[in-house]
């Protein structure tokens, strides 16, 4: 028994080391005053300064964040209403086919989503750029929002709605005072997932972005194809911190959602 537990600890430690080494490797060399990702010369903030003085890169950073926030917001709204609709569907077979359609974009490879959206946008005449990127991000985030919200809705006791209706609540009241507060943790989870989906996406954006518009992933790709630039390392340091904040925030929100006390009443 003792032996296996030692082995397991060693194995897990190895997995964690391999998982985290590349990330810390990147961040470590972002402080290198030398030119590349080897031979650490001396400590410097120069590459971070380079990020913040590069207005083009900053614009791309802002674009990425705007696209992520907008797409997460809009896809959350559409997804929440969609899942409320799905849950109240009487016909089981229609509901199941809607659910399978919902999951198509989750299992589809990015390349196919990107290529088919490219055809779609070209056909209906959406100019490739901000609009096409935003629309695609909304489109591929909606199903994940639905998947996060749906279990919460199914958990909800339908007598809550009946009770509210009996007590004279209007449909609007039922939605804003009963349903939404109850599924709030699911909504938050969906929003965060949509946010990270959007921030993380490369393939779909790569297909539907035109010449004038770029997000961080696409920009990093073209920079990385040209070779090693420590500006990317500095960027990754910043992104790592932001991601960590997002993850920790998400973790706390989802932990709070697990706690049944204080759900519902909170505004």
């Amino acid at each position: 028994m003792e032996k296996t537990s030692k082995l397991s600890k060693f194995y897990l430690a190895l997995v964690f080391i391999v998982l985290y080494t590349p990330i810390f490797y990147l961040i470590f060399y972002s402080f290198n005053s030398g030119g590349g990702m080897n031979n650490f010369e001396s400590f410097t903030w120069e590459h971070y300064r380079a990020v913040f003085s590069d207005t083009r890169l900053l614009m791309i950073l802002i674009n990425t964040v705007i696209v992520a926030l907008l797409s997460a917001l809009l896809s959350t709204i559409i997804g929440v209403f969609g899942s409320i609709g799905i849950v109240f569907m009487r016909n089981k077979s229609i509901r199941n086919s809607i659910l399978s359609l919902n999951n198509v974009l989750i299992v589809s490879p990015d390349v196919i989503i990107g290529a088919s959206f490219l055809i779609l946008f070209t056909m209906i005449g959406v100019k490739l750029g901000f609009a096409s990127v935003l629309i695609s991000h909304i489109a591929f985030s909606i199903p994940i929002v639905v998947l996060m919200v749906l279990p919460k809705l199914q958990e909800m006791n339908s007598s809550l709605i009946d009770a509210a209706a009996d007590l004279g609540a209007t449909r609007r009241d039922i939605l804003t005072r009963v349903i939404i507060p109850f599924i709030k943790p699911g909504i938050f989870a969906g929003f965060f997932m949509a946010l990270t989906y959007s921030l993380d996406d490369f393939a779909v954006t790569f297909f539907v972005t035109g010449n004038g518009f770029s997000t961080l992933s696409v920009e990093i790709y073209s920079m990385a194809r040209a070779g090693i630039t420590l500006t990317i390392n500095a960027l990754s340091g910043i992104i790592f911190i932001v991601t960590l904040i997002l993850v920790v925030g998400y973790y706390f929100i989802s932990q709070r959602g697990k706690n049944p006390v204080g759900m519902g009443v909170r505004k």
Partner: protein
Amino acid sequence: MQTKNTKTLYLIPYFTWIVLFVIAPIGLITYYSFFDLSGNFTFDNYRNFFSSVYLTLTLSSFWYAFLITLFSLIIAYPTAYWLTKTKHKQLWLLLIIIPSWINLLLKTYAFIGIFGLYGPINAFLNVFGIGEQQILFTDFSFIFVSVYIFIPFMILPIFNALDKLNPSLIDASRDLGASSWTTFSKVIFPLTVNGVKAGIQAVFIPSLSLFMITRLIAGNKVITLGTAIEQQFLVTQNWGMGSTIAVFLIIFMVIIMIITGQREKGATSNGKNK
């Protein structure tokens, strides 16, 4: 009751989304696959796909995807198993998931440095007198980086399956005199096979369609179905052929999903499944 009206009203955006971004794209891809470069209706794309060039490409793409999935599974299963035995397993699981939230491009980019000619791996090999090796732009680096990227998506569903496993079943098996291996092969593994299937699904399908890693790490040596689609669409601008490959990729995807069977509802809800 009168609620029927509003129901349909707030469903409009969602259904519009389904029609426009789920059904229409698949239809368009299929439609475009029947046209050649100059816009004439043709079956040539399909004929081309069954030529030796594309068949070898498909086969090699499947081979790489198979290897990536296999290695992910071999590494992920013990990890997930031992994770369930740790004290603060949810926290450790979160630590496994965090790297999957870091931008994919950055992780790939890190390996350009690590595997580089003067990178740490080569420095390490030098110490043992092996000398510098070309690691980047090889099959090894491609598979390693892909496994690295996909491993959290394999660990997660297996972890969930193992976590749900009733420990008294294992005790019962031990009490009845089964060896650890028998317990594993006759009790633990069969009961977590759904998690394994979900993991295979989450790794195999994206592996078929990788194109960014092939470009950055494999240096155009490895061509997957995804790379081929990207090339047809964005480089040669032959949307017809690109769509044809995409149609086949969709067909393969459906087949794989049927083989790996019904996915449990909770499988995706815990993390990203891209």
